């Protein structure tokens, strides 16, 4: 029997960390993820877990200590947000290229500037090419469930990559909702012990991590890293299947909500998918065939699967909660557009930017987006291919 509780997203992830009892957590506080290291250090102080908590002096140091601990053979994690992730930038790439299965609890917050503590995805989207697996949550339950699946994916011998478990700052991290928790022993059995084949603190088997690579090796190393990311695709699904057998909660690369017969779709990441689902429910009552593709796994990017899931819709609204400043849209807009083209799926696609720096995204906003797509298809209305939702004009 699962345990019914109510928790915020930060509490849920901290609880998952407690149940996993990892070996090392270096962390530096930053809003809105501060509660995670705070709660974990509370568990440590109370003797509930024996994780080595390292209070470091910056996020660059947090990720550097995580790299050292993971290379040494410890199951390692950290937590951060926004500029904290940006300060980890250099070391994120070191963690991924050294093939270290570190978990990072990311609480999405906008990058400065303007300085602002609220949610958007500019932090994790900025790190989208750092070589980390990225998994996003709609709510506290998914943040908890994703974190419990994280190490199984990261530590798989065919993968060995770090994984970022993302949830929306404040909206998910601080709002208290109902949640179903697993019993400690079930989590421990599911996650298992970390037994790396090779690690630095193994005196009988010396090794070096992160050596200099001359030109004759660097390109091959990067190809191998890309293969690991490819390998993670099937591992993510295998772990999700096993998790579903344990909990009844099913996960994949994305969730399809009324997408089966939809004419108009919205592709969206994170907590705003919940709002969009409400809009779909309302529109469905009036006979509108609308649906949601809620992306859970952004890295590796499931482009083929997305294109196949969207091939029967007339138009898709690709919703970006971050701005690329490329003069034409956000990261999801580019990647989904590219996936549709490569899979020869010829549908209308409009890239909407929403929710920047915590701007509300309402059911009404979502309904407007759906009706604009319908007008574009049925009335031939000219719709800008890249536009902002909820912007004062």
């Amino acid at each position, binding site marked *: 029997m699962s345990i019914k509780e109510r928790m915020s997203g930060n509490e849920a992830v901290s609880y998952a960390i407690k149940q996993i009892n990892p070996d090392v957590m270096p962390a530096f506080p930053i809003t809105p993820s501060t509660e995670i290291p705070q709660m974990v250090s509370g568990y440590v102080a109370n003797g509930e877990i024996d994780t080595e908590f390292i209070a470091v002096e910056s996020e660059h140091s947090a990720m550097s200590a995580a790299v050292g601990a993971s290379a040494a053979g410890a199951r390692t994690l950290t937590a951060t947000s926004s500029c904290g992730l940006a300060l980890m930038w250099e070391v994120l790439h070191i963690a991924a290229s050294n093939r270290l299965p570190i978990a990072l609890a990311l609480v999405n917050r906008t990058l400065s500037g303007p300085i602002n503590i609220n949610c958007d995805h500019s932090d994790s989207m900025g790190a989208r090419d750092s070589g980390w697996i990225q998994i996003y949550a709609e709510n506290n339950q998914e943040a908890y469930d994703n974190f419990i699946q994280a190490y199984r994916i990261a530590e798989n011998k065919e993968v060995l990559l770090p994984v970022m478990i993302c949830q929306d700052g404040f909206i998910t991290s601080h709002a208290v909702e109902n949640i179903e928790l697993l019993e400690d022993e079930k989590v421990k059995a599911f996650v298992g012990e970390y037994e790396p084949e090779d690690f630095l603190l193994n005196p009988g088997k010396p*090794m070096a*991590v992160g*050596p200099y690579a001359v030109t004759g090796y660097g390109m091959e*190393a990067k190809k191998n890293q890309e293969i690991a990311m490819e390998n993670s695709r099937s591992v993510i699904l295998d772990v999700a299947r096993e998790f579903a057998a344990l909990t009844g909660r099913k996960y994949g690369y994305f969730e399809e909500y009324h997408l089966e017969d939809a004419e108009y779709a919205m592709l969206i990441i994170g907590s705003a998918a919940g709002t969009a689902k409400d809009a779909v429910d309302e529109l469905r009552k009036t006979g509108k065939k609308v649906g949601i593709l809620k992306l859970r796994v952004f890295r590796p990017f499931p482009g083929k699967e997305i294109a196949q899931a969207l091939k029967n819709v007339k138009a898709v609204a690709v919703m970006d909660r971050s701005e690329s400043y490329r003069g034409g849209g956000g990261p999801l807009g580019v990647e989904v557009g590219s996936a549709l083209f490569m899979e020869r799926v010829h549908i209308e696609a409009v890239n909407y930017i929403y929710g920047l720096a915590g701007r509300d995204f309402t059911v009404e906003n979502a309904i407007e987006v759906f009706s604009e797509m319908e007008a574009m298809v049925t009335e031939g209305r000219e719709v800008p291919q890249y536009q902002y939702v909820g912007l004062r004009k």
Partner: protein
Amino acid sequence: MRTDVTKITETSPYAELTEGLKIYAGGTSKKFHTGEWRTSRPIMNWEKCKQCLLCAPVCPDSSIPVADGKRGNFEMDYCKGCGICASVCPFGAIEMKEGQ
């Protein structure tokens, strides 16, 4: 994937390299001749040397071997020519000369 590193070369295909280019062996820095980087070299004047051994511990590349309480000749395979030994020598026994 623990691999015999001596079998990996610059012609190895990517599938034969280790993940993250981890090196599964100890003491491999011996194979890396940092002396090739040198643009100046230390010249020893043994008449001035008092065997005080201040030079040996400051060498960043352990290129000053010490045996039976006495320093020997520089290990030129690894000496980068940084000149720290010349700077610390109180007797002016080490002089840096430009060139390999």
